[in-house]
């Protein structure tokens, strides 16, 4: 268990420093992020407020008509607690206009569309406010592929993409995220009563213990099973990581020249910064 216990002082210093440095070095002083009412975006709002000052952080809540009203209330609470700018842009008209054309669309298509609708709003506000979009996907979600490509996975900078959900909880406690947001069950909030853990079929704490050993410590499958993890669980998580890997990479480019972008044309994004 102790493996996932983070030194929150150190983690806070690193992540606050990351946002401050990576935002300012591109000549920008503002950031924008989607605030869902959940813990991940709440933590990112707190980190950004500490890094840049709350006046330079713009949080947007983008509810759909089926979103739990409690989510918006929690988003408001978080924005108030860390002092950032807060606005609400409902996505119901845009999403409904689209699905009037495709009324038989299933929940997955609807959920993805909502996530991408929110992305377009954040990037529009990026131009409006001269602000970089902060990502709010944690390492657990990114590894499991539990997110929408070009939707909630899209951002300019992601401060929490290398920390597991278990560590998000710890750091949120340390940074003073409101307790009701920490305590509630994680949810994508696509329909009433949905929870991540029910949909995934395991708890974040369980899967984080496995992911940490499998990914960070590179235990073999045999070692994981010997260490007490169910063989089926290990296999299914390995498959999830493998099958979602495309979401973590840039689009594949057909190589024809000597210098193909990202293959043999390689520069850091902070090139010249």
């Amino acid at each position, binding site marked *: 268990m102790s493996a996932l216990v983070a030194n929150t002082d150190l983690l806070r210093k690193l992540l606050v420093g990351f946002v401050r*440095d990576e935002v300012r070095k591109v000549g920008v002083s503002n950031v924008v992020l989607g605030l869902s009412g959940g813990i991940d975006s709440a933590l990112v709002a707190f980190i950004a407020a500490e890094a840049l000052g709350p006046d330079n952080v713009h949080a947007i809540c983008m509810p759909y008509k089926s979103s739990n009203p409690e989510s918006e209330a929690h988003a408001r609470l978080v924005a108030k607690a860390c002092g950032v700018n807060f606005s609400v842009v409902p996505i119901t008209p845009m999403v409904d206009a689209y699905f009037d054309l495709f009324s038989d669309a299933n929940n997955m298509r609807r959920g993805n569309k909502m996530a991408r609708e929110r992305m377009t709003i954040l990037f529009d506000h990026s131009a409006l406010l001269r602000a970089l979009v902060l990502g709010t996907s944690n390492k657990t979600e990114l590894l499991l592929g539990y997110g929408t490509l070009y939707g909630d996975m899209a951002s300019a900078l992601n401060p929490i993409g290398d920390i597991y959900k278990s560590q998000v909880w710890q750091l949120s406690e340390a940074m003073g995220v409101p307790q009701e947001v920490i305590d509630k069950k994680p949810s994508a909030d696509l329909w009433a009563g949905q929870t991540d853990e029910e949909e995934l079929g395991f708890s974040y704490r369980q899967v984080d213990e496995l992911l940490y050993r499998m990914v960070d410590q590179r235990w073999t499958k045999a070692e994981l099973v010997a260490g007490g993890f169910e063989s089926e669980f290990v296999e299914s998580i390995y498959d999830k990581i493998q099958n979602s890997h495309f979401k973590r990479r840039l689009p594949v480019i057909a190589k024809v020249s000597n210098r193909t972008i990202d293959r043999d044309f*390689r520069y850091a994004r902070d090139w010249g*910064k």
Partner: protein
Amino acid sequence: MDFTAVLAQIKPKLGCVADNLALIEEEIASAQAAGADLIVFPELALSGYFLKDLVPEVARRIDAPEILRLIELSKDISIAIGFVEETDDYHFFNSALYLEDGAIRHLHRKVYLPTYGLFDEQRYLARGEAFRAFDTKFGRFGMLICEDMWHLSASYILAMDGATTLLCLSSSPARGIEGDSLGSASAWQKLTSTTALFLNCRVLYCNRVGFEDGVNFWGGSEYIAPSGESVVRGALMETDQVTASVNEGALRRERIFSPMMRDENLFVTMQELGRIARERGR
């Protein structure tokens, strides 16, 4: 002799040689104003670290204007600094210069170019092939560049070559958030302290700060006495100018108390390494 060294814990800009040179000149001026005799900069201070395909663009020959400028500045203060070196045969090295009295006293080319984990140096850079100690106004020195120091043989060779002060120029990325202190910082602190202790040497460790593509460099530049004791340590993850008052008497006393280097048996070491090399060649 006693001397004052400044460890310039700077934040270079990636790929911006002119900007970095200006920053370096400011640091030199302020160290000089504070009465320092020596200023140590991090690995690749002139260029930044995750260069990838920028290597040929930021590389400089040792007669390039930027290097000549630093040589000129070394008339008033000794300077150790890291940069990408371009040679006549167009090889690119991760190099460190020791400049003193308006001349190049030593050029070290990083021997151990890491390629594991987040590192990819050997893809872009040529490998150095020597560890040599050299004489300075402040005694005999050895220079190491970051990963070099993780190879016991590197520090050992320099100490056997008479170095009593080891300079380590570093761009060490921060990682490991589980413990009481940063994982990479505590690993380095153990390493520099143990190296000083084993070899009865001082260690002047200069690490950079800032972020490149989300990777933090943690700073914590440090002067470690020959007893292995940390005398002064820079801020974690923030720019700093660390001033180390280096005392000759402490080195002499340590070498009297713990004469391990005097007793070190070069003959046995050579004999056994020679045997190992022969057996591997079979």
